[in-house]
Every structure is written in structure tokens, then in C-alpha cells.
């Protein structure tokens, strides 16, 4: 009998084993691309501060692109026609782009410290033609601004690039092969002459720089021979300029024109024509008094803008190969003008267009005055009105433009806004907008949508019969459609499936779809804007500018800190709540005014519309109130006057509130009303939170806090320290990662031998990552003095209990290159995963590589020990009894972010979602990260637990790449959220790009599978029915016959 039971049990085991290999089917179908996921490719906000990185139009033959380098360290080319990305190259963080320099079909970039790396790309395709290290990054000068002292210019045929790096070295490099012809370096590298411009002329290469004299800068020039790189002559120009960056510029025109140096000196403009012998014949332009000169990107066409002190400006330059400066056009003074921006562009025939773009308060529009200098006699000034929407895009930032000779002065103007958007205007028509501010998203959160409300209009009782009939007929107008739909659905089985688009029904107002897959992602950026993004397709539902409040007068910046959903869809309505029954979010932000005052502002927003629910009542400042209302910006509420060290969301009873701690650890609540105060007071004694603190010797350590009320001192709760976590010498607190909160479906894990491991579910756990102490004596870069043993540098991963600072789990990891730590970790329930790089390989069986460690914490010291850790007080002795089971795996890639999936009830297994360095988002099955994977063949008991044998490498599985062909560049954070379906979780990734998809770690067990074939079922059933009908008389006859003849 025993054998039979074994037989059956092994059968039972075999069946799940089949299931185990089934999850392969879970991968994406090609038809789901763009339906269940979306990807928003971004480039980041262009660095408009310098011409070398600012966006510019570039034309090669018939095609034109917009080139730019951005704050996210991306070099990109945009299609001016529709704003799409033609190509982009994301640079590493340490390889900062200094500038890009275009010529014909090539664009060159210098990046890294001192411009250590030269790359050339094909302008239209973005193919990397050449990558060359010019000097080691360690020997590079760090300069501020970064573009200063770096320059690339090309020989007229584009074959050679003359590259200026480090402010003192010129190399002549073949722009395609990378062969270096010659290198010239100024003899005294520490001298205070810094070169910043290179001009190519047939007879000489001119290198222009500034040298420091007593109160100002003096221009310095060197003429080099183009063939050998010998010095032809070197000279200081008799000049005195106050601004080394913008105080001078070089003009070059066609090959036959001699280049000139132009500089601004005490109200006048001076210039020198460059010749190989560098004579110093200075020409002074004597117009009315000047204020500054501007290089607007057409110095290659020998044009620049000079601004007068009275606000008018003129285009200056030399024309028709005649040296010498003259005025080529004038922008007259206007009183209706706010901060004009000058921009220039060239058309197909190399004709220059210069424009002045400004905000005209009287017409509430932007205006562009375009001046074309087509010929000496034909100077046309065209004025264009640009209906720029200042309410949604802030104020005008940088402007660049493009001319077109064929159709008159139809100019394309590219406008960058203060909120990080890029807009292209063709005359007064908006062509496209790119919201590049999203690449600087700091905080983002999912908000569930409410269900669609069935609106029914009730008659008020005095309805006549006729009108009631009419109304009911009206109500029934959708009935036939419903009937048809019902029949169709019944016959074909086309129900809502988890892989159908979430925004199939474009309901207005926003409402949840069948499975809650449609939600709103609220994202706040560094550029002072909040966005509501449809999780179904990535469209921006609304966007609002965050107002500066009183700081609007002095200028400032809003830095989002935390975003909380203070009222989700299921939460009960609060008494006297202004926000209605919908969800609400609160954004805590720091306002850094330009006068160095820091305040904390809270924006209370309706995530469905972006409307402000509660706003500051500014009785004292009626004017400001009116202004902010007019501008339609979010006003916010000044909650704390001063910075906030930490903000938390606290759910107490029915209400959720934001708890903020200021510098003095005073507690501020939002909303601050008697209900929340009472709720907070009730729970105050049980609140514990860790904060970073600096020790006198500069080490950062962790201090646990609690809050208490001392009515004699203050009417606010004040935090006081309760414990200090002593870290080893030389270890610094780097990051505190709170545990991912979510429901836990089971408190234990039943093993194959019918014993149970109870999960350690202490709700007060958090992860602490430490790094080697940066300011310590051991980190100064020296090899360590004799007799003084430097502290070993280590990175640490800790799990700490916030109530009393108990270290529940601890691991010491090797630092990368001996100094820095790049550890990523996530803690969910009792499961910790961390990822680091291990470069220790000298030992037996060791290898270099990224390691991923999976740790599970269980109660007590072994199996069947239950301490009720989820409800236990931290002060009980048993709370420190933890069994940690861990296993380490080799991971093939570096990762930039990781998270676990989260589902509604926590029944579904949690998968790990990682963003890898290869710009992909990958899911890793929980089963692979089970730290109890046996290091041998699995036994029957282990099979019952679905354990699979340990393998040291977590192999890359393309079928589990959620982002498939998308390049999700530079992912910084992953957030997951449950849907109505227990099986399915939404995953949102942001960083540079944005990406959203759905995952079902245990397959979609709660809905009919995609493969379910209703047609087949109906066919089978009807075939059986037909068979029964057909055989019934036969059987009856047979029975009858049997009865007769038996």
C-alpha cells in the first residue's frame, strides 16, 4: 500500500514540476507591445547656459536636425518636423559633456574632466565615427563652467579637427581615423593663461585665451602653423575685459575673410584682425554706449549682437569679405518688453537671421523681432507674435532659431521654457512640445482612479407622464447597443483581458477600467512642475506649475521632496473636506528662494485634474493672491518656515496625515485639525524614526528618535533621541531605505517535511547602507603612514529595528576600487535583496562580478518557532531572535534600481524588478532568489516546495525582459503598485526615460488566460449536445430491445 501512496504522491509532485516550467509562457507577446506598456523617450533639459551645449539647428543637405546636449548628460538630435528623437547618446555620469561642435555631417563632442574624450558622430544617423582619449581623466582640469577651456573646430573640408582641451593643449586630429598630426601645449601649463577659442584660417591656427592681470583679463593669442603646429607668433592684446567667458568672441567668415577678435571693454567694442604675425592694430566701434556683446551662434558667419545700455541692440559684423565691423541692423528700444533673448540662425544659403524674443506684457504674448541681413540694402525686420502659454510653461528660457530663404522669413523658433519644455514654433504656430522636465522627475506615485459613477437624474416628483416616458426612452437609448454588445460578448468571449489596453474606453471624467490597470502617475520635477500621467498610455493628463509664493519676487526654486497619497480611493471621506470624495495627494517641497531662505511648502492636489484642493489664504497680500490666481499656478501652503528634515505619511484610524519634522525636530501635521491632532496624540508614543546625525569627527551615524510633548516648553511635539547605532570606525551612513509596505498573506512558509518557518515580519525594519567615511584620515588618498593602521574600508548592509536600533541583519561588502560603494538594496516583508560589485578574485573559486544576495528572515532560531514578530514589541527579548537564510548569486549586469512587485492582497509571489545597465527592465522570478535552493539534486520534499537546485549564476533570460526592445535609459527608480487583479502589478520606471508595464509574477491566475478559447469550448459543448441528440433514440431503441430479448 505504501508503494501506491508513494506513487500517487510522486505523481502529485510531478504535476507541479510541469507547472514549474510553464512560467516560460508568461513572456510578452509581440502584439502586446505598446498595449500593455509604454515608453517615453526623453533627452533631458538642454543646457542652454553655453553655446557649446545649447540647442541649435543644423542642416545637412535637405535634412535638418536640432542638436543639443542636456542636463541628463545626453547628446541628442531631434527631428524639427515632429520633435521625435533622431538619435541620442547617454553619457556616463563621470563623462560629463563639455560641449558639441558641428561641421558638415560631423558633430564632435568633448567630455570628461578637461575634455578628456573626443568623439565624433554622424550628424544625421548618430553613428559613432571616432572615440579618442586625449588625456587621462585624472590629469584633466575641472573648470566651472564646464565648457570653458575646451573647443573643437574643423578644417574647412572637415577632415581635421583642431581640439583644445584643458585650456592649454591643441591637437590636430583626423576627424575620422583619430590619427594625431601634432599636439601643441603652452609651455607653462600652470600659467594663468587659459585658452578658450580656436580659429582656423588658411595661413594659421589662432588660439585665443585670456590671462589674468590685476583687475581684469587680457586677451592673449597664439598663431600656430596648420601643418606642423609650430608657433608662428604669440602676443598679448592691449585689452582689459571684465568677463572671461562672454567678454570676447571671435568672428570668422568665408575662407577669404581674415578672422577677427572682438571684445567688450568699458562700454565700447574693440576688434583686431588676426594675421599670422599678430599685429595689434585695434579698431574701436564708436556708437552709443554699449552694455555687452553677445555671441548668438553665428560668429562663423561673422555676426554678433551688441546691446546698448538703453535696451536697444544692434547686429554687428563684417560682410562681403571686408574686414572691419559695422552695424548690420538694429533692434529699437521697446517699453513693452521683459528680458529680451537674442537668437540667431542661418538658412540654406548661409544667410543670417537674428531675432529678439521677449515677453510683451501688454498683449500677454511673446514677440519675436526677426532681422534678416540678406544684403546691405535689404534689411527687413519682421515682428511675429508667439502665443506662448506662460501658465503651463512658465517663462521663456533659451531661444534658438532657423531661417529659411525659400519662403521669405518663415522662421522656426525653438523655445526652451523654465519648466523644462522644448517647443518649436513656426512663425506663430506651435508645432510640437517636448516635456523634457520629466527627465528630472524627483518623486512619482501611483494614484488609483475611482470607479465610474453612474449618473442618474431623478425626477423631482412633479414629472408628468409624458415627460417620464420621454426620459425613460431617452435612458433606454443605449439598450440596443448593450444588447448587441452582450450577445457579441457571449458568443465570442471578448471580455476585458489583462492584456487589453487600459485606456480603451476614454471615459471622462477619469475612471477606473475593469481591472484597475488605469491609474494616474503623479510626478513632480526639479523644474517646478507637477504632472498627471495616464498609466494607460503615458499621455500627460494635466500639468501645473508650482508657484513660488512670496519668493516669486526674489526668484527661487521649488524642490520636491516627498509625494504622498493622503487619500486613496477606498478611504472614507473626511469631515469638512474640500476635496470631495476623490483621491488626494500631498506634495512636500522645499522652496529655496534666491535670497537663501528655505521654506517648506505643501501642495494639496487632486490627482485627477491637478486642481488645488487646499491653498494658502493670503489675506495679507491681496496683490500676490490675485497674481497667482491669474497665472493659474499652484499656490501651495507654507507649512514650515524652514527646511524639513523628514516627512512621513501616517495612517491613524480613518485619517491619513503628513507628519513633518523641522530642523529642531518639531512635529508639524498636515492637515492640521483637531481630528488629526487627536489621532497623532493617540499614536505619538509608538512612533519611532531614525535620522542621520553628524558626530564631532565628521562621521555620520544613525540616531533613533521618538516624539514627546512638553506643554511647558512648546505646544508642538518635539523629537528626542532614544538610541544611536554605532557604526564601525570609518563607516558612514549613506542611505536609509524603508521597507516596502504591503499586505502579507501568509506569516509562514510550510516546508516539505510539514514543518514551518515563520516569517520575521517586524513592521519597524528598515535597510541602512553605509559607505567608507569620506572625510576620515584614511580616505585622503595617501597610502597610509607607517605605524598607523588605516581602518579597512567596507560597505555595509544593515537591517535595523527603528524602535531600539537593534541590528537584525548585517553584511560587510567590499568597496569598489577601495573607496566607493555602489550597493542597491530592497526590503519587502521578510525578504532582503542586495546587489553589489565584488572585485576580489585572488582566492580559490572566486571571480570578479556583480553579486546579488537574497536574504530571508525567519522568527526564532529554526523551524516551528513562532514569536509573533509582526505584533511583538521591539522591547521583548525575542524580537532579536532572527534566523537569516541567505544565498548569493552572480548577476550578469550592473543595476541602477530595483524593486519588488506589489499586489493587492500579497498572495501572489513577489518578483524582483531590476533596471540593468544595458537600459533594460528585467523581472527575476522569486523562485530563483529563494535562498533555500539546495546545493545538490532536489529531494522529494524539496520538490514539493518548488525548490530548484542552486546555480551560481542568475542567467539573463530575454523572455523575462519587460522592456524588450525599448531602451529605458538611466532608470533611477522603480515603483510598483497593485491593481484590482491580485495577480497583476503595475511597474513604473523613471530616471531619464519613463516606462510603464504590467507584470503577473504568478501568471494571471484570477482571470481566464489569454489562451482560453471560448469558440473551442462552445464548439465542443455543442458537438457533444448534437451527439447526445443523435444517439439518444439509438440508445433508447437498444434498451428496449434488450428488455425484450433478455
Amino acid at each position, binding site marked *: 500500500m505504501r508503494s501506491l501512496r508513494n506513487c500517487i504522491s510522486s505523481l502529485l509532485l510531478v504535476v507541479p514540476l510541469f507547472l514549474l516550467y510553464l512560467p516560460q509562457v508568461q513572456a510578452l*507577446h509581440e502584439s502586446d507591445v505598446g498595449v500593455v506598456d509604454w515608453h517615453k523617450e526623453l533627452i533631458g533639459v538642454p543646457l542652454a547656459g553655453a553655446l557649446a551645449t545649447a540647442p541649435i539647428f543644423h542642416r545637412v543637405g535637405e535634412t535638418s536636425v536640432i542638436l543639443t546636449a542636456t542636463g541628463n548628460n545626453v547628446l541628442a538630435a531631434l527631428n524639427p518636423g515632429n520633435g521625435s528623437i533622431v538619435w541620442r547618446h547617454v553619457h556616463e555620469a563621470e563623462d560629463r559633456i563639455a560641449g558639441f561642435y558641428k561641421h558638415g555631417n560631423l558633430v564632435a563632442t568633448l567630455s570628461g574632466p578637461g575634455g578628456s574624450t573626443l568623439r565624433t558622430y554622424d550628424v544625421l544617423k548618430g553613428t559613432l565615427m571616432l572615440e579618442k582619449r586625449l588625456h587621462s581623466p585624472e590629469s584633466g582640469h575641472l*573648470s566651472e563652467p564646464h565648457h570653458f577651456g575646451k573647443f573643437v573646430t574643423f578644417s574647412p573640408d572637415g577632415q581635421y579637427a583642431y581640439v583644445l582641451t584643458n585650456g592649454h593643449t591643441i591637437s590636430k586630429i583626423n576627424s575620422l581615423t583619430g590619427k594625431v598630426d601634432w599636439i601643441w601645449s603652452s609651455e607653462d601649463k600652470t600659467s594663468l593663461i587659459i585658452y578658450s577659442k580656436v580659429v582656423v584660417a588658411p595661413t594659421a591656427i589662432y588660439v585665443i585665451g585670456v590671462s589674468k592681470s590685476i583687475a581684469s583679463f587680457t586677451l592673449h593669442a597664439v598663431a600656430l602653423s596648420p601643418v606642423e603646429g609650430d608657433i608662428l607668433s604669440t602676443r598679448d592684446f592691449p585689452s582689459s575685459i571684465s568677463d572671461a567667458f562672454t567678454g570676447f568672441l571671435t568672428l570668422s567668415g568665408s575662407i577669404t575673410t581674415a578672422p577677427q577678435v572682438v571684445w567688450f571693454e568699458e562700454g565700447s567694442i574693440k576688434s583686431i584682425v588676426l594675421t599670422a604675425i599678430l599685429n595689434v592694430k585695434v579698431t574701436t566701434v564708436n556708437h552709443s554706449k554699449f552694455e555687452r556683446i553677445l555671441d548668438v551662434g553665428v560668429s562663423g558667419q561673422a555676426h554678433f549682437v551688441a546691446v546698448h545700455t538703453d535696451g536697444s541692440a544692434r547686429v554687428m559684423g563684417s560682410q562681403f569679405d571686408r574686414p572691419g565691423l559695422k552695424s548690420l541692423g538694429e533692434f529699437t528700444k521697446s517699453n513693452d518688453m521683459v528680458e529680451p533673448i537674442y537668437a540667431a540662425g542661418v538658412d540654406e544659403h548661409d544667410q543670417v537671421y537674428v531675432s529678439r524674443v521677449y515677453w510683451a506684457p501688454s498683449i500677454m504674448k511673446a514677440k519675436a523681432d526677426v532681422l534678416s541681413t540678406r544684403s546691405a540694402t535689404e534689411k527687413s525686420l519682421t515682428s511675429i507674435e508667439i502665443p506662448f502659454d506662460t501658465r503651463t510653461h512658465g517663462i521663456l528660457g533659451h531661444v534658438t532659431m532657423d531661417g529659411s530663404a525659400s519662403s521669405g522669413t518663415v522662421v522656426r523658433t525653438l523655445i526652451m521654457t523654465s519648466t523644462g519644455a522644448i517647443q518649436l514654433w513656426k512663425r506663430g504656430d506651435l508645432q510640437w512640445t517636448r516635456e523634457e522636465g520629466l527627465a528630472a522627475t524627483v518623486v512619482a506615485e501611483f494614484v488609483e482612479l475611482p470607479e465610474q459613477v453612474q449618473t442618474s437624474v431623478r425626477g423631482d416628483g412633479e414629472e408628468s407622464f409624458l415627460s417620464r416616458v420621454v426620459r425613460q426612452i431617452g435612458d433606454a437609448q443605449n439598450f440596443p447597443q448593450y444588447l448587441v454588445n452582450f450577445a457579441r460578448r457571449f458568443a465570442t468571449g471578448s471580455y476585458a483581458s489583462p492584456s487589453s489596453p487600459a485606456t480603451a474606453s476614454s471615459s471622462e471624467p477619469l475612471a477606473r477600467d475593469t481591472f484597475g490597470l488605469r491609474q494616474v502617475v503623479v510626478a513632480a520635477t526639479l523644474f517646478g512642475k507637477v504632472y498627471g500621467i495616464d498609466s494607460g498610455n503615458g499621455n500627460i493628463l494635466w500639468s501645473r506649475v508650482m508657484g513660488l509664493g512670496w519668493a516669486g519676487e526674489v526668484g527661487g526654486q521649488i524642490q520636491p521632496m516627498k509625494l504622498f497619497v493622503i487619500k486613496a480611493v477606498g478611504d472614507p471621506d473626511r469631515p469638512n473636506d474640500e476635496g470631495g470624495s476623490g483621491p488626494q495627494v500631498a506634495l512636500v517641497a522645499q522652496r529655496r528662494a534666491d535670497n537663501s531662505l528655505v521654506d517648506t511648502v505643501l501642495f494639496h492636489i487632486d490627482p485627477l485634474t491637478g486642481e488645488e484642493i487646499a491653498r494658502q489664504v493670503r489675506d495679507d497680500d491681496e496683490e500676490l493672491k490675485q497674481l497667482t490666481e491669474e497665472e493659474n499656478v499652484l499656490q501651495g501652503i507654507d507649512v514650515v518656515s524652514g527646511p524639513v528634515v523628514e516627512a512621513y505619511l501616517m495612517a491613524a484610524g480613518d485619517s491619513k496625515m503628513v507628519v513633518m519634522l523641522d530642523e529642531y525636530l518639531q512635529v508639524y501635521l498636515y492637515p492640521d485639525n483637531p481630528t488629526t491632532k487627536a489621532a497623532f496624540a493617540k499614536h505619538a508614543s509608538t512612533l519611532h524614526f531614525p535620522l542621520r546625525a553628524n558626530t564631532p569627527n565628521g562621521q555620520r551615524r544613525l540616531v533613533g528618535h521618538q516624539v514627546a510633548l512638553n506643554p511647558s516648553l512648546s505646544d508642538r511635539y518635539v523629537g528626542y533621541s532614544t538610541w544611536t547605532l554605532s557604526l564601525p570606525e570609518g563607516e558612514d551612513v549613506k542611505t536609509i531605505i524603508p521597507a516596502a509596505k504591503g499586505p502579507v498573506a501568509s506569516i509562514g512558509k510550510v516546508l516539505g517535511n510539514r514543518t514551518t518557518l515563520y516569517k520575521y515580519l517586524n513592521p519597524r525594519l528598515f535597510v541602512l547602507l553605509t559607505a567608507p567615511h569620506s572625510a576620515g584620515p584614511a580616505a585622503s588618498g595617501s597610502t597610509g603612514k607607517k605605524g598607523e593602521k588605516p581602518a579597512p574600508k567596507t560597505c555595509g548592509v544593515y537591517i535595523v529595528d527603528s524602535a531600539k536600533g537593534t541590528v537584525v541583519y548585517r553584511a560587510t561588502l567590499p568597496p569598489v576600487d577601495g573607496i566607493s560603494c555602489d550597493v542597491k538594496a530592497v526590503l519587502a516583508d521578510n525578504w532582503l535583496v542586495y546587489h553589489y560589485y565584488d572585485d576580489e*578574485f585572488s582566492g580559490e573559486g572566486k*571571480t570578479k562580478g556583480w553579486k546579488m544576495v537574497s536574504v530571508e528572515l525567519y522568527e526564532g532560531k529554526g523551524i516551528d518557532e513562532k514569536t509573533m514578530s509582526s505584533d511583538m514589541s521591539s522591547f521583548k527579548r525575542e524580537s532579536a531572535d532572527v534566523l537569516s537564510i541567505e544565498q548569493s548569486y552572480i548577476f550578469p549586469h550592473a543595476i541602477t534600481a530595483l524593486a519588488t512587485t506589489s499586489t493587492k492582497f500579497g498572495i501572489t509571489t513577489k518578483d524582483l524588478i531590476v533596471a540593468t545597465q544595458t537600459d533594460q527592465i528585467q523581472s527575476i522570478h522569486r523562485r530563483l532568489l529563494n535562498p533555500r535552493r539546495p546545493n545538490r539534486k532536489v529531494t522529494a520534499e524539496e520538490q514539493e516546495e518548488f525548490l530548484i537546485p542552486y546555480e551560481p549564476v542568475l542567467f539573463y533570460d530575454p523572455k523575462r525582459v519587460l522592456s524588450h526592445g525599448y531602451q529605458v535609459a538611466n532608470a533611477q527608480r522603480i515603483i510598483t503598485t497593485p491593481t484590482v487583479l491580485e495577480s497583476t502589478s503595475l511597474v513604473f520606471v523613471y530616471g531619464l526615460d519613463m516606462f510603464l508595464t504590467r507584470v503577473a509574477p504568478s501568471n494571471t491566475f484570477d482571470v481566464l488566460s489569454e489562451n482560453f478559447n471560448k469558440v473551442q469550448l462552445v464548439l465542443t459543448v455543442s458537438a457533444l449536445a448534437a451527439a447526445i441528440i443523435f444517439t439518444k433514440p439509438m440508445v433508447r431503441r437498444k434498451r428496449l430491445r434488450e428488455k425484450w430479448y433478455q
Partner: protein
Amino acid sequence: MAWSPLLFILLYSLLVVTPAFELLGKIQLNDFLLDIEGLRNSKIILDNGKMQGRIMHDGNFVIPDVPAGTYILSVSSPDYSFDQYRVDVVDSQTEPEVRSYASGTSLNPPSAVLLAYPIAITPRQKHVYFVPPESFNLVAMFSNPMMLLMVFGGVMMLAMPYLMNNMEHETMNELKEQQARVAGMQGAITNGSSKSGVSTMNGEELLDSGGQHSKNSPSAKSRGNNRNKKR
């Protein structure tokens, strides 16, 4: 106006400059990779990517300033998988030693086979991210063995009476006997273990060959019954 805008931080490192090497290599096209453009933003990285090189239009790559040491060279590519290599840079003059390396294995001792330098790397596989959707197919549905059995059963059920009618009397009798035996066997299975069913089957075979049916069958049955009692 002072020097203040020119915030030059001189970073002349006073460290001893270790001999550095410029590592060269090339990605070679094959059936998986027909165009270098297909590699998108792939990079060649040493160890954790601190040192890296991008792939140029002709497939060449350069990793500059590699100090002496042992490295794992890998291709960080989204769409293709590549082999990994162990690279030992000795000094700036001699060519580095390149060996193949399998991920997850011990780095030491190194493989005895040296590969050619500059390193030539070929893609091993192009990743397939999608699975083909399963679609309804009538042929596939009926080629399912279960389905075939069902269809065969249905056909037999309908065809049986006609077959029976057409059969001769003798064969008919034989068949009836056999049927009775099968029914008996089924009864044994339902009230006994599988073993007794099997032994009945054995007995039946014996009956067909000889005539010892009466001798064997009851004992088999009683054995089965004994078993039942034990349970």
C-alpha cells in the same frame, strides 16, 4: 573683478602613474548581427564598467588607459549576448593576454589557451523577447491524442452495432465470453487493488492457452480479497 569666476581646480594628481595600456578590439559581424548599428548603445566594459569603450561605426573599440591587472572584458549589449574574456594587462609595452572566460566560473587558474590580440568578438545570440501567441487551430485541436481517442470512441460506438451484426456466430460467442471476462476484471478492479486486476488478467491468459482456469483464478481472487481485508 578677481579670479573668482575662473574656479579652476587643478587636479594634478601626485599619484605615481602606473603603466597604462590601450586595449583594442573589434566586434565582428555574423549571421546574428548583420549591421553594427544593431548594437545600439552597446559598450565594451572591463570589470564593472569603470573602464569602457564604445563601439565605433566599423566595429572597432578602444579602451584607453588600462593599468596593469587582470580584468573581465564583457560586452554590455541589450539585444545580443556575447562571450566574456579574461584580459591580463602586463605593462604598457607587451600585448595583453586574452583568454576565454565563462561567466560564473573561477577566474583562477586561467585557461591555457591564449586568444589572438586585438580581441575579436562575435555575437553568440540575438535575444528574442517575445513568445508567439497561441492561436486556435482546428487541425491542432484534432491532432491532440485525447481528441483522437474521443473521436475514435465516438466512431466505434456508432459503428459497433453494424460490425456486430456482420460478424459470424462463432466469433460472436467468443467475443461475448471475452466481454464477460473483462467485466469480471473490471469488477475486481473496482473492489480490489490493481494487483488483483492484473492477476485476473493473467488467469485469463492462462485460460486461453490451456484449461487451468479453475485452478488459478480463485486463488488469485482470494489473494485479492486477503489484501482487501488487510486494508
